């Protein structure tokens, strides 16, 4: 069911425990080096925009909106990842349950020794 951006998805909120919660100071983001996954998210953004699924400008506006409301507790650099996932679930490309299951599968694969 579409949430229209009004409420956070639990599967995304659970990622908050993994990052430092946003404070009034962390807009000063230049001290940190972007993680590789951030570049990968941007490539996903480009693919989605190119395919006509999620236009870049629309996604940018959603980042601003969601980043200041339902995901306001997250650091700024996580906005693209959260917004892409949120928007694709809103558009019913995949469900929250599918994402949760896929994350479990991915984690198991990456942690395999």
């Amino acid at each position: 069911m579409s949430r229209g951006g009004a409420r956070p998805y639990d599967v995304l909120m659970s990622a908050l425990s993994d990052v430092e919660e946003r404070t009034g100071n962390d807009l000063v983001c230049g001290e940190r080096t972007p993680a590789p996954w951030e570049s990968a998210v941007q490539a996903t953004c480009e693919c989605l925009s190119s395919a006509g699924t999620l236009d870049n400008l629309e996604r940018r506006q959603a980042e601003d909106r969601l980043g200041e409301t339902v995901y306001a507790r997250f650091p700024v650099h996580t906005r693209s990842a959260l917004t892409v996932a949120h928007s694709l679930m809103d558009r019913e490309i995949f469900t929250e349950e599918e994402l949760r299951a896929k994350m479990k599968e991915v984690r198991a694969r990456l942690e395999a020794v």
Partner: protein
Amino acid sequence: MSTTHSHAPLKESPLTEFEVLELAVRELAIEKGLFSADDHRRFAEWAESRTYTVGSRMVARSWLDPAFKERLLRDGTETSKEVGVDWLQPTGQGTPSDYTYFYVLENTPKLHNVIVCTLCSCYPRPVLGMSPDWYRTPNYRRRMVRWPRQVLAEFGLHLPPDVEVRVHDSNQKSRFMVMPMRPEGTEGWSEDQLAAIVTRDCLIGVALPRADVTASQVPKQPKGRNGGNKR
């Protein structure tokens, strides 16, 4: 087998939720047929291969073509398309601030422009590629807006007192690039020759182009104390 040096064992940091989330979303999108893994790889490769040479080309063309220069100064975003850069389609710049207006700032004999991002590290990546490390440091960001001449001097750029220094603070919606003046000794040069001397730092505004310096050449060895490399 012997080796002349040893490598420290690879220490693996814990997997983060965002690494997992990124790959999970990507794989679901691929499974749903929105794009392919190769599409994703190609966009990532494309974004990471952008360099400042696009900006160099813009400046070189402006020096040779007054009509292009006029268009570039009037509407940098639109005129970028003439050198193959569309700020929207695709952006591919790996930044969450990728929807912007692009402004080109012309240096004159009485005005020198320089760019900074005091808030974070906004940079015109479609035309300059990845920003240098120092551009992202708090030191540069904090001090350039307060003491620009002091900071420029640390880069070796000493401007006469009668030249106004104008610092442009990038933000989420505005990106800037400096158009330096064409240096002496470049009369009759081709666009390729001119583009070669417009280095990254010239486009940021912490250096000036010189006819005898290109980005690709190895810097000359300083002469040291006895050689008298005096300013």
